[in-house]
């Protein structure tokens, strides 16, 4: 092989690396700026000319966020809704996904297509009818209702992903357990679930991010102060922005994103596999 070809194979990476750093700057710059602002005093945050590095690092904004009257309740609601919704979606999604992968019966295709179709109905188009119906039966401002609605948003993808994961397990493994006298529920609990654990983790990660970040569902169907989440609290502050404190707001932004940031750090791999799994032909 000639020298020219082999040098073409290991090209000079420097320009690409430099460009990559530019992309990283574009993406992370705003986040870093928000973080820096959150560590400044209210006065320094609006100083001209603005500086990235705070002259005096202060945690008073974070202290203010944490000691805010409704903070603990907002945080609790955020956790309860998102964890509840993901748990519910798994509880109903795993049996459906397993059955879709392992049984063949009349009407399965229609059933699965119906589930897929519901994922295409946007939540924002159902605000008016859902509000009307919930109002009519007196179920507005219910934490359970919000949790179920959030779960419904992630159930279709959960069912389809689980079905794909189960299909990837060789059926022979299940058959031999079946012959040894294991029941269907034993097979699922001790054989299938451990094998698809990475898949469940990916679906759950995406589900937590989706539900934690929701604003619309909670804001419209549970506008009560006692039922709101961190996301709703954040938007409300922007909307009544009389004498807004930017450093306080950026601290709130960081705190409201913290669980997602931590999760992203730990399960980044699952997150990416969850994203790309949706694109894989099922």
């Amino acid at each position: 092989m000639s020298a020219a070809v082999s040098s073409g194979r290991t090209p000079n990476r420097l320009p690409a690396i430099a460009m990559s750093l530019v992309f990283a700057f574009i993406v992370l710059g705003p986040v870093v700026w928000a973080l820096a602002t959150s560590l400044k005093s209210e006065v320094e945050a609006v100083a001209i000319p603005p500086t990235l590095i705070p002259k005096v690092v202060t945690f008073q904004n974070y202290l203010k966020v944490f000691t805010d009257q409704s903070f603990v309740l907002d945080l609790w609601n955020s956790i309860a809704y998102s964890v509840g919704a993901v748990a519910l979606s798994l509880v109903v999604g795993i049996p459906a996904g397993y059955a879709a992968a392992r049984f063949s019966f009349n009407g399965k295709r229609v059933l699965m297509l119906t589930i897929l179709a519901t994922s295409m109905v946007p939540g924002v188009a159902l605000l008016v009818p859902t509000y009307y119906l919930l109002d009519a039966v007196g179920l507005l401002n219910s934490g359970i209702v919000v949790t179920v609605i959030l779960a419904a948003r992630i159930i279709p993808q959960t069912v389809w992903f689980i079905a794909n994961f189960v299909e990837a397990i060789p059926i022979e493994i299940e058959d031999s357990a079946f012959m040894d006298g294991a029941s269907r529920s034993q097979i699922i609990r001790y054989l299938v679930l451990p094998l698809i654990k990475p898949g469940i983790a990916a679906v759950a990660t995406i589900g937590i991010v989706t539900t934690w970040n929701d604003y619309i569902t909670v804001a419209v169907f549970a506008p009560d102060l006692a039922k709101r989440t961190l996301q709703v609290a954040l938007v409300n502050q922007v909307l009544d922005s009389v004498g807004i404190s930017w450093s306080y707001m950026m601290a709130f932004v960081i705190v409201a994103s913290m669980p997602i940031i931590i999760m992203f750090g730990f399960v980044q791999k699952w997150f990416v596999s969850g994203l790309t799994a949706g694109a894989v032909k099922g």
Partner: protein
Amino acid sequence: MEISYQPVEDNKRNKMSEPKSQTLETALNIASLDDAKAAEARRNGFFRYYLWFVPAILILFLVTLYPSIFVFWLSFQKTRYYELVGFIGLANFIEVFGSKAFWDTTFVSLTYVVGSLAGAMVIGMAAALVLNSAGITGSFLRVLILFPWTLSMSVVGSIWLWLLNPSFGPIPYLIKLAGMDPGLMLGDPDLALTLTILVTAWWSFPYVMVMATAAMQSIPNELYEAVEIDGGGAVIKFKYVTLPHILPSLGSTALTLSIMYLTLITLLIVMTGGGPLGATTTLSLEAFRGTVQAVNIGPTAVVSIVVLVINVAIGAVYTRLTGRVTG
């Protein structure tokens, strides 16, 4: 091979998976695979297959399917606030489709979706290509660049509201340093939509990057080597190997994003609230506002139906493209 007792009706697969040292006794106790499955089917009955789906379908029916049907019924009603006054046929549709505001809103939606899509696809593709050829640095930075995608729209909106703040934000400050007048930024009716499009592209291009990278990494290296042997450079490689291979993946990514942009309203609520002067009011934002303000929900139902129909149509194309229907 040790010979063990086999029921006559045993199939081949059963024989193969039978443990070698099986005694006569246990072999007799274990029903054959087909027997076991048949027994389960008898026990459960045919219709019991559906039971596995009942909880999921029940929730989806209550939360998604029923309101989807109900919104059509609502659109035929004369309404005062949240009160139904009576059936009025297509009057709500005529009112909505006959108003200039509706078509202005539709145009804003279209501009917003197409603009954001163009931005995210181009930047995302560029990022994927650049990071792919940046070796280990690229793989490391890819993780960091994906990060904003996980942030909520309320958070993204708040951060950019601050960065673009005309009095104290760093971006207007830089524009001033460059000797230009930043003006009102998001408060400028001529600029607000462009800025929200840029922020949307900023938030979503990492998704395009990840999808494009996943597609690129599935391309066999031999194809690139073949081009090299024939003396082709980077442009030829991209045009004849990379692009044709990732095109289907890019197509489905574009459809996914279109659906997302069409219904994305939290960012708009935080950054502009639909203003100034309706410059950033999309159809979905109108559906939201109609619900919250509840002056007259009949026309709001019509706008919701428009959003619903467009989304389902794009979703159907997506399903076709990814071939899920045959699954």
